[in-house]
């Protein structure tokens, strides 16, 4: 009885839980609720993924109004995969959150924290699940607004200015998206994505269509922090509460990437994107610049959270680069990296949260000799860092492998070289941390430091372990990503190269 409603339950469950959190007015209960909702959401997402992998996409009409008139939720292999990613991160991060949030958030506001967290989760799931362009905008803003609030809850006063900056840039991005959706609606007279795609066929030359797509691309690039529209990201990640940083870094930009994929390939079609508009000329240089600038700036950061934030800018570059190939291998690389980086970066930020829990700082000079004091958290950091570099047997290797192979297939030699060269930059910043943590003596003035509580270390290792696992067993991730890429390109997946 419940099965047909899974697509909507996926979104409504956290939406309902958010106000209940406010009503509970108790931080611990709110956490428990958010945790339960997170795990149930994960279950739903997995069920959905299993169903769409076996069969056709699922369609759900909100209010019983048949699409294209009502709002439709439409689950296919691509967004089912994304739902699993987001729900997994949420479920794991919430286990972690209890201790970390108690340490970092004013006790009176903990229940509000979880309400905002659930809203953010709702927004991200909604973006993935909905088949309605305007609805996507609304969910995007639900997630964005709640992230601004979550970021502002960081301890440092710079969290406020970071949230403000993010709000300004995010809203500009949102407004661009709104314009794009409006123009597309004007041309097609529909907001349903599938319907819109049907009606856009043959309109590739239409100027309004091109303008609409341009606005959407710019707006989404802002939201996903594509260089040079990434300026909001470093501070936002650096000063947000640890839990929030981990959650957002792992999910928010990824979901925006999904939206970009959806609009580019499913709705407007690769024709508009890559032939009418020279996206294949614009995106790769920006992506490569992101890889290098992000990594280079990361090298010079002394705050490790900021370092990882800039690293995210670079990693987003890899994802976008894969997309910009517009080939099966390229898209597979982009989607796999989306998944792998979600796990890796999520785990890394969780590891840093463990450090922050004990030290109240994640500055490099404060982390000297921490490898012996917090062996588990630091080992997780190293494992995740290796993933960022793309060392074999980590998830990062798999995605970079496909990325370089895709580049070589396209005959883009220099791009392949640049991808590898930028990995070296990742090595440098990761190594800076490793060296300080393992090979420098602990400062004398620092008191006795112990490992963070198990409830934090365990989730950290779950994400890092998963990223290692998916670096070893790639059949699931690569298989699903390839299926999703084939769906976007409307080709048959075929065998791997």
């Amino acid at each position, binding site marked *: 009885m419940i099965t047909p409603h899974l697509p909507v339950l996926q979104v409504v469950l956290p939406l309902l839980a958010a106000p209940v959190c406010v009503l509970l007015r108790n931080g611990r209960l709110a956490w428990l609720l958010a945790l339960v909702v997170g795990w149930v959401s994960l279950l739903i997402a997995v069920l959905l993924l299993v169903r769409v992998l076996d069969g056709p996409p699922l369609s759900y009409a909100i209010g019983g109004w048949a699409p294209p008139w009502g709002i439709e939720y439409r689950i296919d292999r691509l967004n089912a995969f994304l739902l699993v990613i987001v729900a997994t991160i949420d479920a794991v991060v919430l286990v972690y959150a209890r201790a970390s949030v108690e340490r970092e958030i004013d006790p009176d506001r903990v229940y509000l924290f979880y309400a905002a967290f659930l809203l953010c989760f709702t927004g991200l799931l909604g973006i993935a699940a909905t088949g309605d362009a305007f609805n996507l905008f609304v969910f995007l803003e639900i997630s964005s607004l709640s992230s601004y609030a979550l970021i502002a809850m960081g301890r440092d006063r710079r969290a406020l200015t970071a949230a403000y900056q993010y709000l300004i840039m995010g809203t500009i991005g949102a407004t661009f998206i709104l314009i794009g959706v409006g123009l597309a609606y004007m041309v097609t007279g529909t907001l349903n994505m599938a319907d819109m795609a049907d009606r856009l066929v043959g309109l590739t030359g239409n100027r309004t269509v091109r303008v609409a797509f341009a606005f959407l691309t710019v707006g989404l690039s802002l939201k996903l922090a594509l260089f040079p529209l990434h300026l909001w990201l470093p501070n936002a990640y650096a000063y947000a509460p640890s839990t929030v940083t981990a959650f957002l870094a792992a999910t928010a930009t990824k979901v925006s990437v999904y939206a970009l994929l959806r609009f580019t390939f499913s709705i407007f079609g690769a024709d508009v994107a890559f032939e009418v508009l020279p996206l294949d000329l614009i995106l790769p240089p920006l992506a490569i610049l992101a890889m290098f600038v992000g990594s280079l700036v990361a090298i010079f950061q002394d705050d490790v959270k900021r370092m990882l934030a800039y690293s995210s800018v670079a990693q987003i570059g890899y994802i976008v680069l894969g997309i910009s190939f517009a080939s099966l291998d390229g898209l597979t690389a982009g989607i796999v990296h989306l998944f792998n980086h979600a796990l890796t970066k999520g785990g890394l930020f969780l590891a840093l949260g463990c450090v922050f829990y004990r030290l109240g700082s994640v500055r490099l000079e404060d982390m000297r000799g921490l490898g012996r004091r917090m062996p588990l958290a630091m080992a997780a950091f190293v494992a995740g860092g290796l993933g960022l*570099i*793309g*060392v*074999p*047997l980590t998830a990062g290797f*798999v995605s970079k*492998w496909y990325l*370089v*192979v895709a580049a*070589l*297939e396209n005959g883009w030699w220099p791009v*392949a*070289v640049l991808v*590898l*060269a930028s*990995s*070296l930059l990742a*090595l*440098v910043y990761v*190594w800076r941390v490793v*060296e300080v943590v*393992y*090979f*420098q*003596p602990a400062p004398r003035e620092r008191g006795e430091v112990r490992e963070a509580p198990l409830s934090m270390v365990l989730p950290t290792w779950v994400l890092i372990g998963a990223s290692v696992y998916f670096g*070893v*067993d*790639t*059949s699931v991730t*690569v298989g699903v990503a390839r299926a999703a890429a084939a769906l976007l390109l409307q080709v048959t997946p075929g*065998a*791997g*190269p």
Partner: protein
Amino acid sequence: MSPETTVAAAPLLPLVGAVLIWLAGRRPNLREGVTLVTAGLLFLAVASLLPTVLAGGRPAAVWLELLPGLAIAFRVEPLGMLFALVASLLWIPNSVYSIGYMRAHREEHQTRFYVCFAVALACAVGVAFAANLLTLFLFYEMLTLSTYPLVTHAGTQAAMRSGRLYLGILIGTSIGFFLLAILWTYAAAGTLDFRPEGLLGGVDPGLLPVLLALYVFGIGKAAVMPFHRWLPAAMVAPTPVSALLHAVAVVKAGVFAVLKVVVYVFGLDLMQAAHPGDWLIWLAAFTILAASLVALGKDNLKARLAYSTISQLSYVVLGALLATTAGIVGGGMQILMHAFGKITLFFCAGAIIIATHKENVSEMRGVGRTMPFTMFAFLLGSLSVIGLPPFGGSWSKWYLMLGALDAGRLALVAVLMASSLLNIAYLLPVVVRSYFPGGEAAASPARLAEAPLACVVPALFTGAACLALFLYPDPFYRLLLQLVAP
């Protein structure tokens, strides 16, 4: 145990040992006992494969399938057999020596030292048995990472600086060139499995020199100039680590990988038909001479030995690039012979440091009188490295010269001979000088002041092995011959 099981288990064995060593960390005797037992077991396991391989068997095993068509897999062939034998055998004396050296020096972080050592050996075996480029690359990188803590063992600022150089060059070249070359190979051939006939039949011959150069430079552990600086930098490490780097595992993994790529990725036929390595041969020749000259100018004994290694490694690269029967056999022999010779020299250098705290050649007058056994071993090692009969090193030099002659490159023969003269010039004076009266010993009558037994005995053992290898090179020769005449 079937050979297949042994192959799959061999790289795991030192890893398990590493865990046990870590667990035994608080009890030094137990810890070092575990190290020795592991080393012994590893050697037995590896040696047990020798008859199979000699008989033409190629035992294989797959750990796991990483990407479709790409697996972490092992397949023992003669070259890998040789490298694995060298590494696992030398780990035993090296462990004994380590115990003596580390205890004598009262070094800190000894548990970390032994754990990393074991992991490095696992990686070396992994590199040796790798069935494809991906596996090779994986263990190659892990070898770099696992030896970093050993290189920076002292923890001083100088050690950290050297460590950065070590990592920077090795990882930089491997990701920037080696991985790129691997990906190129994959894109061109659709597979990364080593095959006796090579993989690159379909590649535009005009591009082969570029690809080969990517491999040769990408495998930074082979220390071909200009990517050699990491090796002298790494001499800040404790002497057993130097032995590991120079003889047991690290540089040997590098030249081994070059040989393996030439034989199994390019294939000897392609090498001889297309000559992709011509200009690299001259680079190797240049490295041989230049490094020898630099060594001549170094007063610090370990630095002198380090540059000597750079020179000697390029012998292997040279042999590989010649790609003639004699060249390949000579290159393979050189891996083996140089390992035993150089480890002897480092054991002795470390022993001298322990006993006299002297590092510079110019200070070593009279050492020969107080440390006669050490200096005797040093002499054995020197002669083998120089390539004089009756020592093992003479075989490799001999085959390399033959290879150069076969290829019709008389200039290379001249280079090899000149290098041998330079070897004499920078190695023998150490021995000679040590027997001169002088130093503190000059005042008092000569009396024995040797390093601990655990340091001297391994040096004598490996020195004697140099002699033995001259007399019994046959199994190794037969192994290597399988490469060129399957």
